[in-house]
């Protein structure tokens, strides 16, 4: 969103094409892993197809597995076809892409782990004209992040020449950014020993989704919503992230993380901050991130004495999804039979600022819920004077008649719910919705979140990446709950059936306020 730092090429100015990014090499650390195969390389290939990679560019994959350049290329070609069938794969485009893919086996745990990398990057700088600019993509288990940063520094790969803007190193860090406030700070300290904050790109792939970016456009490009977007008109906000899938073979990881760390601390709070932030003074990366961070810093800390009124945890047991029986969480592979890990979280949050004082933000996220959906619903207050009897045809009235729903996935779109008169002699009301679906209005393929984010990093635009103070603020909010939960493990787990909408306490939390979760 912000301007590219490179000098503007007048021939490209004003054309509906991107300004050039600076030449660079991208080093993928953990190139044999799931993330690289499923998301990263398909995204890079799609960028190549659209001509969005810089003219001087190459990719170096690294991980422990021994492979030649060609074996790596073949494996990546297979991954693109398997995991991104929507990207057209033609041999000649692939061959041109493969020509700048390289592989270097290495164990990052060992001291000499990155010695060969500096030499290879020098060589590739000559061959591909990458000008010594390097992006390091951390796609390894997070426990290795610290060591890798140290090794990069020891190899001289993180150095900048004083007073010069290039050549530059950048680092992309995958979530989780720590497990709690102290480990996040420790990781940050480690990274900041070798990288300046503006060189650090913390990926939150939710922010790369088109519909998430559209929240800003909807709010700030239209004059009609913003006047209503405050405590005078909004009754409450509901943010739902519901998955039907379980842990999908990543039980080991999930046991360590749990839903709060996996979804709430990052994606959900980032989403919330986009919905609640003040208009930034510009689309500049820092201006937008300043406003988002302010939201996170204004969130009311949880009162641990009455935590149950504000935070609900759940774990799924056996149940049915789409008519098929599915196992409970404790029966999943690599999960303890007595696991106390939460697979569902519901929170009631308050933002203590002028705009949102006393407006509850209800956030729920969970695995194995009734339907896969992510949405933000803004529930507006009732009309001040009840002229009409509200014996409408659905139970939605308990929530108030008007809701603006931003559907993030699937069926991305925007929907406005309002009351209208039923045709007929009596004044019977009915709730209708005005629906806008991206898929029907724009027939074009939306770029994947990784495509957008990797491209932004290459361009040096950090708008859609989490900044250190935002990460710190979200951990500050969440860590006390995690600690409290760790000290008081839930004995009722599993407390919701797969295919349901979470534990009863989640519904009760809203019921106590005279509200209910949306039926979706």
């Amino acid at each position, binding site marked *: 969103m912000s301007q590219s730092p490179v000098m503007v090429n007048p*021939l490209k100015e004003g054309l*509906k094409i991107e300004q050039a990014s600076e030449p660079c090499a991208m080093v993928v650390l953990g190139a044999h892993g799931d993330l690289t195969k499923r998301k990263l390389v398909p995204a890079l290939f799609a960028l190549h197809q659209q001509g969005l990679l810089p003219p001087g560019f190459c990719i170096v994959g690294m991980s422990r597995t021994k492979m030649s350049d060609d074996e790596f290329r073949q494996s990546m070609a297979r991954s693109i076809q398997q995991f991104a069938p929507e990207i057209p794969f033609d041999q000649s485009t692939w061959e041109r892409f493969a020509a700048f893919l390289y592989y270097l086996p290495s164990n990052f745990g060992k001291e000499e782990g990155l010695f060969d990398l500096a030499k290879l990057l020098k060589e590739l700088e000559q061959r591909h004209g990458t000008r010594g600019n390097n992006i390091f993509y951390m796609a390894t288990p997070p426990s290795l992040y610290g060591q890798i940063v140290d090794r990069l520094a020891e190899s001289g790969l993180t150095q900048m020449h004083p007073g010069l803007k290039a050549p530059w190193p950048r680092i992309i860090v995958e979530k989780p950014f720590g497990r709690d406030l102290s480990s996040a700070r420790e990781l940050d300290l480690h990274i900041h020993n070798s990288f300046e904050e503006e060189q650090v790109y913390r990926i939150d792939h939710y922010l790369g989704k088109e519909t998430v970016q559209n929240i800003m456009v909807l709010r700030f490009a239209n004059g009609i919503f913003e006047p209503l977007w405050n405590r005078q008109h909004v009754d409450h906000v509901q943010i739902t992230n519901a998955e039907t899938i379980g842990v999908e073979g990543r039980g080991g990881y999930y046991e360590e993380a749990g839903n709060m760390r996996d979804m709430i601390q990052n994606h959900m709070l980032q989403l919330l901050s986009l919905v609640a932030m003040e208009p930034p003074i510009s689309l500049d990366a820092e201006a937008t991130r300043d406003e988002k961070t302010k939201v996170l810093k204004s969130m009311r800390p949880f009162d641990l004495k009455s935590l149950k009124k504000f935070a609900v945890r759940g774990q799924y047991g056996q149940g049915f999804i789409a008519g098929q029986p599915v196992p409970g969480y404790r029966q999943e592979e690599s999960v303890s039979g007595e696991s106390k890990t939460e697979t569902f979280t519901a929170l009631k949050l308050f933002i203590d600022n002028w705009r949102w004082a006393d407006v509850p933000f209800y956030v729920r996220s969970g695995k194995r819920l009734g339907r896969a959906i992510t949405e933000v619903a803004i529930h507006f207050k009732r009309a001040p004077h009840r002229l009409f009897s509200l014996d409408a045809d659905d139970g939605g009235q308990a929530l108030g008649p008007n809701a603006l729903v931003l559907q993030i996935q699937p069926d991305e779109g925007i929907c406005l719910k309002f009351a209208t008169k039923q045709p007929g002699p009596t004044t019977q009301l009915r709730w209708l919705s005005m629906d806008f679906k991206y*898929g029907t209005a724009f027939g074009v393929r939306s770029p994947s979140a990784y495509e957008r984010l990797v491209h932004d990093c290459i361009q040096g635009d950090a708008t859609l990446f989490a900044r250190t103070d935002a990460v710190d603020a979200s951990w500050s909010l969440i860590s006390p709950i995690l600690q409290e939960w760790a000290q008081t493990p839930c004995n009722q787990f599993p407390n919701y059936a797969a295919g349901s909408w979470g534990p009863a306490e989640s519904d009760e939390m809203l019921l106590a306020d005279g509200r209910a979760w949306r039926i979706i």
Partner: protein
Amino acid sequence: MTPSAQKTDSKSFLSGRLTQVDPDGIERELRRLWAQAADGVAAGTHPDVVRACSFNLVLFSGDEDAESKCGEILSEIVSHHPCRSILAIYRPEKPSHLEAWVSAACHLTGAALMKQICCEQITVVSEGQGSSALPSVVAPLLIRDLPVFLWWRANQSHFQIMEKLLCCCRRLIIDSGREPFNLPFLMQAAELTALPRKDVFASDLNWRRLLSWCQSLGNAFDGFPLSLDYLFTVRQVKILHSGQVADRQEISCQSLLLASWMAARLGWQPTSFLRNPDGTATAAFSYQGSTVQIHFAPKADSLPAGSVVSLTCTFLDERHLEVSYQLRQGSEYIVAATDSPDGRAEELEPTALTVSESDLIGQEVEVICRDAVYEATMNMVYRLIDMLSMEK
């Protein structure tokens, strides 16, 4: 598609078959067909149908084959860009006749391909009428509050009707490639671009066809193979267009657009534009005390007449950059290559060329504001053609 009998049912309407309707009852008939389709959905005899529309597209044509050719193109467009499309056919030379047809262009979507997304396609044929009849049918058919694009898929001779249709349009899309050597047409397009009405703006499909060229040329100065500084040391440009010997006196609209874009972007000021005795033409520009020349010449080629075949820049240090059309494994590309100082040829990643009209229109309808680059280009086109006519 063949016209079917009147009072078609919604099934045949949704299948894309044309239904003839009374020109003053088009909306009424559409309402009837949609209501019937909704009943069909309720009774379970139709799949779910979504009537989608995000803009109006009016395609104006006077061609003999407009019904079939334009109908096909519109169906392709709406599958990616849901809109109400109105095919407005005007043939004043024929015996007097006015008729209208409706159909739906549908495609299946949703997880199990269970939902039909449908767009309305309306055809209005006005033959042997004056220039007022057709706009009076078309204007009330436009869906209010949605953008209206007028695609002028016709020649200059019909321009008198354009004014009337422009009353209800926001965007005018012409195609100077239809008459590839017709400089007066391009001149008129330049005048349209400078329309005094702030709320209407024009664009040209022939310009959009050139964007891959512009992109490829621009990319070449992004550091590899050439640094940005090279852009400011261009001394000569040679643009070859596809043309036969018989066309040697002609300057192609597309070449002129490309040259004008370059000159406008780089701040070159035109000083002369002359036809040479050998049938080629040369435009001269001043730039920071130096002279830059652009030569226009034909080259026998299989591309459609008037299409740019290659552009070669010569720089102050005698290096060259050639951007050319290439067919590789059945796909069309623009490729930029340069000779490096050590004599090696350096080639840039090819840029895919967009050629189909439906793809080009698809790109056009995504542009919602004035295209300042195109407008500056057309301003330069105007100045150059003006110079050329003064030379005569």
